[in-house]
């Protein structure tokens, strides 16, 4: 059974003139990292909102089709269940802080407090998140005085602290430097090893190619291409739908084309080294 299932889902925002998403269907299995790709305004965040149940709980309007989490329609989940089932990290780190906590440690604990978790258990989980996200140096700082990148890391910690089986990360590295970006993707790899399901909206295509199992490429609110990352991200048609290909993939596609070869196209640098390192491609 799929952990996340969308069947012919469509939605138009109450003041919208056209559908934000239209006839979207895909399934994500447990432990998969599913990348939602596409240009700005292609419907990626709307899909995330539908999966998290913000539509129609927060954004009114009538979605069509069905969104299911672990075989159960998302509208049947209550707020506490949704928080425990799906962790959601938003695009803008500046609006993600609760605004009512004066240090990072308590900011991370905020969801646990709302869920009524006991203090000792809460402290242990917060400490684990501080270690995981390397937040020791800012643990006592005021969240509202942090930089965008620091806030982003705190926001991710605040999401993961509830240990949800599904994690939605909407452009989690948009404010981060290369090292912190790498750290976030290492966490994504860790989540995957822990059997968690990750929905990832991200533009850094080389990293997406390295860490994703499944790719959904959105264009104008519709699914333009979908399937395993290896298949979708080595297909030149991605470029026709406003998507991008990893640098190394583009290099090998052009090489094949120019030299008239039909060699397998690697998805990442590691993949290329594994395939061609010895031959000296």
């Amino acid at each position, binding site marked *: 059974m799929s952990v996340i299932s969308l069947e012919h889902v469509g939605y138009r925002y109450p003041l919208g003139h056209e559908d934000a998403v239209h006839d979207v269907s895909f399934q994500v299995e447990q432990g998969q990292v599913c990348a939602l790709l596409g240009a700005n305004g292609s419907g990626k965040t709307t899909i995330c909102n539908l999966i998290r149940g913000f539509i129609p709980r927060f954004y009114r309007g009538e979605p069509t089709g069905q969104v299911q989490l672990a075989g159960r329609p998302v509208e049947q989940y209550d*707020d506490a269940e*949704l928080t425990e089932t799906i*962790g959601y990290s938003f695009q*803008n780190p500046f609006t993600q802080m609760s*605004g009512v906590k004066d240090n990072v*440690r308590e900011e991370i604990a905020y969801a646990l407090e709302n*869920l009524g*978790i006991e*203090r000792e258990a809460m402290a242990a989980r917060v400490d684990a998140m501080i270690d995981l996200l390397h937040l020791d140096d800012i643990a006592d700082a005021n969240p509202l005085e942090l930089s965008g990148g620091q806030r982003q890391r705190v926001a991710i910690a605040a999401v993961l602290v509830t240990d949800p089986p599904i994690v939605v990360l909407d452009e989690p590295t948009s404010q981060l430097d290369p090292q912190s970006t790498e750290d976030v993707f290492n966490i994504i790899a860790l989540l995957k090893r822990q059997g968690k399901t990750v929905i990832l909206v991200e533009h850094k295509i080389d990293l997406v190619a390295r860490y994703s199992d499944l790719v959904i490429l959105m264009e104008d609110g519709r699914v333009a291409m979908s399937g395993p990352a290896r298949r979708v991200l080595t297909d030149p048609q991605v470029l026709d739908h406003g998507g991008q290909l990893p640098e190394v993939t583009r290099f090998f596609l052009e090489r094949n084309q120019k030299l008239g070869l039909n060699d397998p196209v690697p998805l990442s640098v590691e993949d290329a080294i594994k395939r061609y390192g010895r031959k000296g491609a």
Partner: protein
Amino acid sequence: MTGFIDRLYPSSKAAMVLLAIIVGIFTPGYILQYAMFPVFLLLAIMAGNGMRFFKAFLSSVGTVVLVIFLVQVFIVRYPDSAHIWAFIALSPTGLDKSLGITSRIVSSASAIMWYFQVTTPKDMVYAMEQAHLPKKVTFVIMSTIGMVPQVINRSRTIMDAQKSRGIETEGNAWARVKSFVPMLGPLIFSLIQQTEEHALALQSRAFLAPVPKTSLYRLDKHTIDRVIQVICLLLLILFIVWRVWK
């Protein structure tokens, strides 16, 4: 903040403040009421906030008290007013009234200002949560307090952006007003725009979960807190008995 005063539970300090306000308002005369200012100043010094308390008191309440005093004594006319010059007259009744009014303002304001100087909003809200106040109420209080510096920062950013486009933002009062008014639009709209995502972020962190909230932060109620609260209650009862039976 450190020390005995800071370690007191917010409700203990609130009990002291409440007692001071009631006693100050309903006790005849003005000596006791004026005497409360040095008492709260001393308590503020004990909490390491003496100078801050004194400055805050002078800059806010001090001015109001002075104006009321002067108006009551020299401007407002009573039957026993003795004319001095133009509209200025001196009245013993006015003096008595002004001492009565200003002393009560001084006692109440000293108590309230002391409370806010020695109690952090975080401690206040924690105590409210422990007293089972609705989560939404405590959230509104804390987020309002937290919002002030954010709004100031945001307005500075907008102001800097305007300055970089050549708009005059400094100079005399009129120049400042002219630059301030156009800033209000972007400021208000950007705050409204952020509200939606902030609400979603809170929702995704179980803000609406129908379970009793717990807290990572801990503030203990000690024996001294119970002693203070009981003493305040007894003093209040004695005061009421004294005022009713006198």
